[in-house]
C-alpha cells in the first residue's frame, strides 16, 4: 500500500495499522533527507500550508514549520494571540478567510477537543491536527512510536507505560491508540485523580505504583504535569507528586533491567524526571525531537499526495 486511507490526519483513532506503517516507512526516507548536506526536497513546491495555532506551542510549531519548509511548501503562520479571534470571529470564518488565500493544508492546534474534526466537515482544505484540547495529538504519537521502533526494533509485544497526568493529556490518548495498533502492551500510571475513570476500556492496564510500573515496562513515556489545564488540585503538592511519581536515577538503578525513557517535552526538570535521568543515555528525548521533523514531513507528504493537481 502506498496511500493513506484518510484525507485528513485528525487522530490516530481514524488510522489503520497500515497507515501508521506507511507513515513510519516514509519517515525513514525523510530522515535520510534531513541528514544530507542540503536538507530540502521540492515535493510540495506548489502546496500552501497554513499553521493555525489557537494555543501556545513552541516545539510542535517549529517542527511543523521546519517540515513544511524542507518539503518546499509555502507557509503562512497564524497565532490566535495576535488575531481577529480576539475580536470575536468564529473558527469557520477565520479559516475560510485564510482559505480564500488559496491554502491547501491547514495544520491546527486548538484548545477544544474535536476542533479538527469539526473543521474538516466545514472547509475544503485538508486538516492536520497538531493537538486538540485533551483529545488527540497524532503526530506526537507517530513520532513516539517511531522512536521506540528505532530504539527497540519493533513494537510487537513491547511494554510501554505512560506516566503522569493522563487525564489532561492528548499525548496519552494518541499514544494509547497508536501503540495498541502496532501491537504493544500499554499501561498508564499516575495519581488516581489524574487517571480517567474508564481508561481501562481502551485495553490498557492501570497501575498506581510507579516502581511496579517501571519494573513491568520496556519503555516509560513521562508526561508533563499540565498545571495550566488544572482548575482544581489533583494532588496535595508538587513535592508530594515528585516523591511518588518523579523518576530518579535511584529508581532506575533499582530495576533489574535498563528501560528507555521518553518525554514529549517541555520537561519540568526535577518534577516528572530529574535532570540526571533526562540527560542520561537511557533517555531518547532529543531523538524524539529529530524524528518529529521526519514524521511530520511524511504526514504532510502523504496527505498532499492525495490532493490531485487538477482539483487545486
Amino acid at each position: 500500500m502506498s496511500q493513506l486511507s484518510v484525507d485528513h490526519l485528525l487522530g490516530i483513532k481514524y488510522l489503520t495499522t497500515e497507515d501508521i506503517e506507511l507513515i513510519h516507512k516514509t519517515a525513514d526516507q525523510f530522515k535520510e533527507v534531513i541528514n544530507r548536506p542540503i536538507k530540502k526536497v521540492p515535493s510540495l513546491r506548489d502546496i500552501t500550508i497554513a499553521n493555525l495555532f489557537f494555543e501556545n506551542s513552541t516545539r510542535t510549531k517549529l517542527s511543523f514549520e521546519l517540515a513544511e519548509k524542507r518539503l518546499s511548501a509555502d507557509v503562512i503562520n497564524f497565532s490566535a494571540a495576535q488575531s481577529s479571534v480576539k475580536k470575536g470571529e468564529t473558527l469557520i470564518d477565520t479559516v475560510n478567510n485564510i482559505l480564500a488565500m488559496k491554502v491547501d493544508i491547514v495544520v491546527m492546534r486548538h484548545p477544544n477537543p474535536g476542533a479538527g474534526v469539526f473543521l474538516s466537515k466545514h472547509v475544503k482544505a485538508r486538516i492536520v491536527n497538531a493537538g486538540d484540547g485533551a483529545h488527540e495529538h497524532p503526530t506526537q504519537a507517530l513520532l513516539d512510536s517511531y522512536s521506540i521502533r528505532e530504539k527497540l526494533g519493533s513494537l510487537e509485544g513491547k511494554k510501554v507505560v505512560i506516566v503522569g497526568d493522563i487525564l489532561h493529556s492528548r499525548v496519552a490518548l494518541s499514544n494509547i491508540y497508536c501503540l495498541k495498533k502496532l501491537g504493544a502492551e500499554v499501561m498508564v500510571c499516575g495519581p488516581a485523580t489524574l487517571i480517567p475513570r474508564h481508561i481501562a476500556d481502551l485495553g490498557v492496564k492501570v497501575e498506581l505504583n510507579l516502581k511496579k510500573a517501571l519494573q513491568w515496562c520496556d519503555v516509560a513515556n513521562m508526561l508533563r504535569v499540565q498545571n495550566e489545564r488544572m482548575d482544581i488540585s489533583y494532588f496535595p503538592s508538587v513535592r508530594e507528586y515528585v516523591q511518588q511519581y518523579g523518576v530518579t536515577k535511584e529508581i532506575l538503578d533499582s530495576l533489574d533491567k535498563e528501560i528507555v525513557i521518553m518525554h514529549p517535552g517541555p520537561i519540568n526538570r526535577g518534577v516528572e524526571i530529574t535532570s540526571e535521568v533526562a540527560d542520561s543515555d537511557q533517555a531518547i528525548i532529543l531523538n524524539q525531537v529529530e524524528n518529529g521533523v521526519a514524521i511530520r514531513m511524511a504526514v504532510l507528504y502523504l496527505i498532499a499526495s492525495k490532493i490531485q493537481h487538477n482539483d487545486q
Partner: protein
Amino acid sequence: MSQKILLNAAQLDIILHRLACQLIENHGDFKNTALIGVQPRGVFLLKRLEKLLKEHYQIENLQTGLLDITFYRDDFRRGEEPLKANSTEINFIIENKDVVIVDDVLYTGRSIRAALTALQSFGRPKTIELLTLIDRRFSRHLPIQPDYNGRQVDAIGNQKVKVMWKENAGEDAVYLLKSEDQ
C-alpha cells in the same frame, strides 16, 4: 501480451563488458568518479557493473551510491498511484566529482531530470554523465541523451521494455512487451 526477446544473457554479458570498458576508457582509475544507481531498477545494473569493474577489471576504490528520486519527480499529485519512496544511500559528498548516473531504461527522460535535481542535494559535481542499458529513442520528452548506451530500441507507445536480472527475475534478459488489444 506478446513478447519478443531483445537481448539474451550472452548478449547482455557482452554489453556489460563493453559498458565497463567504455567507463574505464573515460575514467581511468576512477579516483574522482562516483557511479550512482537510480532506485529502484537502476540499482541492479549498477551492482553488475560494480562487480565487473572490481573483479574482472581490478578497479579498486570504486565509489558507488543509490539515489531515490521519488521526492523530486514532476508527476507528484498527477498520477493515479502515489509514488512510493525507496532508500537513498550516498555516503560521500559529490562536490567536484565526475558522476555517472546509472539507470536501466531511458524513456521520457523525466526520471533523469529528477535525478539531476536530486543530485544537487549532495554537492556540485564537476561533471555528470548518463549510462543506460536500453535507450528508447523517439520517446523523449526532454533534451536528455545517454553518454554510454547498451542498446538502442525503437519502441512505440503501447510497447514496454522489460529488463530482467538473475537477482530479481531469475534470468538475464531484455524483452519487448506488446499488449494485444491495442
